[in-house]
């Protein structure tokens, strides 16, 4: 009998089960190998695979976003990673989560990373954060009855982040939080991999793009 997938592998599978069918199937196929199911594989072997692969391996995938006024569909373009890189994403986000929480300002209501042992994807689901945000807005309105609420929706925010900006943000964050050298290198490697994709900015909602 094959061993149960440990925390990091389970996290990556949960993340991509709801995100992209091809990335999910690739992970399931990869994790058929019993040695790949343990956290140690992710920390030692998957990390070294990513570091020693010159360019990132991504599948250019299109996800339905909305219908345009003329009725035609609009898609998000996603570059889904190889299974080794998906495992490394889980490792990076779990490892950086504690440091990340220390820096939260109380004004960010999304991308709340899950605990390592917690079932589910890399981040808590969107709705609880949205509810919390609405409550914060209500509290602010009650405290300042004459103020005005302004909603701003920044279109294509994540694709607008350049790899150079992401690299600088990761370098500053990891220095402030004394992240281990291997993890720092892995973070820079994932960002550098995006430089070789056929566009200049980061992919839409690439999980690591949220670390800033």
């Amino acid at each position: 009998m094959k061993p149960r997938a440990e925390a990091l592998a389970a996290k990556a599978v949960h993340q991509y089960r709801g995100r992209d069918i091809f990335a999910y199937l690739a992970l399931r196929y990869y994790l058929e190998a019993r040695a790949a199911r343990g956290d140690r594989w992710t920390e030692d072997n998957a990390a070294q695979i990513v570091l020693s692969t010159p360019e990132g391996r991504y599948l250019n995938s299109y996800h339905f976003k909305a219908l345009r006024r003329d009725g035609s569909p609009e898609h998000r373009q996603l570059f889904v990673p190889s299974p080794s890189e998906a495992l490394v994403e889980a490792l990076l986000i779990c490892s950086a989560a504690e440091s990340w929480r220390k820096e939260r300002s109380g004004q960010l209501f999304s991308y709340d990373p899950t605990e390592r042992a917690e079932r589910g994807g890399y981040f808590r689901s969107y709705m609880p954060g949205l509810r919390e945000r609405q409550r914060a807005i209500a509290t602010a309105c009650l405290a300042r009855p004459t103020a005005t609420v302004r909603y701003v929706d920044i279109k294509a925010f994540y694709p607008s982040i350049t790899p150079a900006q992401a690299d600088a943000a990761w370098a500053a964050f990891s220095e402030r939080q004394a992240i281990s050298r291997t993890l720092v290198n892995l973070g820079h490697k994932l960002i550098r991999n995006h430089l070789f994709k056929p566009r200049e900015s980061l992919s839409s909602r690439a999980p690591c793009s949220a670390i800033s």
Partner: protein
Amino acid sequence: MQDLPSSVWVSAQGILKIPPPVCAAYTAVIQQSGLFEVATGSRPDPAPVGGISQELTDLHFAHAFDGSVARAQLALIDPHNEVPITSATLLRFLSGGTLCIADLPCGAGAASIAFMGSIAQLRREEYLPRVPLQVHIVGGEISAPARAYADQLITSIMPDLEEQAIFVTFELRDWNVLSPVSNSELIERIILSKATSLQTLVVVCNFNGFLERAGKKDEARPQLAELFRFCSGGTNAAVWIEPKMNAATGGLFPWLKKMFPRWSAFLKFLGSQDDDETSESKYELPLKAPSTAVARLAVLPIDLVKE
């Protein structure tokens, strides 16, 4: 490694099995070379240590190649959990990505073939994931006949490796560890391969006969230091594999451990100063199955990092 498939390790009997494609390639080359009778006959005493001539190379290839493969495979799969640092290091480098293996002295390619053949078999058995692994082997060996055997063997297992996403290129070079020029030429080839390989694994195997018993280690020291120094930095490591015998564990290894502090600017010894990582196991003889012999292993794991 735990719960290994029976095609590499029969746990009930404690027998290591050389992967079938490697056994088939070795058997074919032995037969093509007219060495089958010699190889299936009784093993000379003392055991052959090889040499530059065709005759000495043939004798060593016929009687000692399978033992060298089994020893390297034992270092990788470590079924008794006796060489965990070495096994983890090897598996980390052989899991995927781009890799240069500096196989020195490569002889007939036993170490490289054992590593890649075992990884391919573990992938075939769904023990390891089938991640693309691009390997460039730089083999250094003074014996031209041994290099010719290595060429035949590596070439013949390449289709089986490719089925498991292991893509191999190789170059086998004349290398004399006592010659600074020969050594520099070899290092130049390793450095060039770093342009496409982001990991370098230096594998030194079965060198005690020449360095310890023939008393050449002091003469070889500057070249060994140069080799490790130039291979240091980035994601690089070395493993030094020898048969577990007095010449290695009582002579060569203590000498190397004395050298390591002097070379600390470019390497870090990962093992213990007092105890070597050692292991032994029966292995099935590829030409005389199901008969077995014993592979004895002593190994030094080394991280090639700059201070």
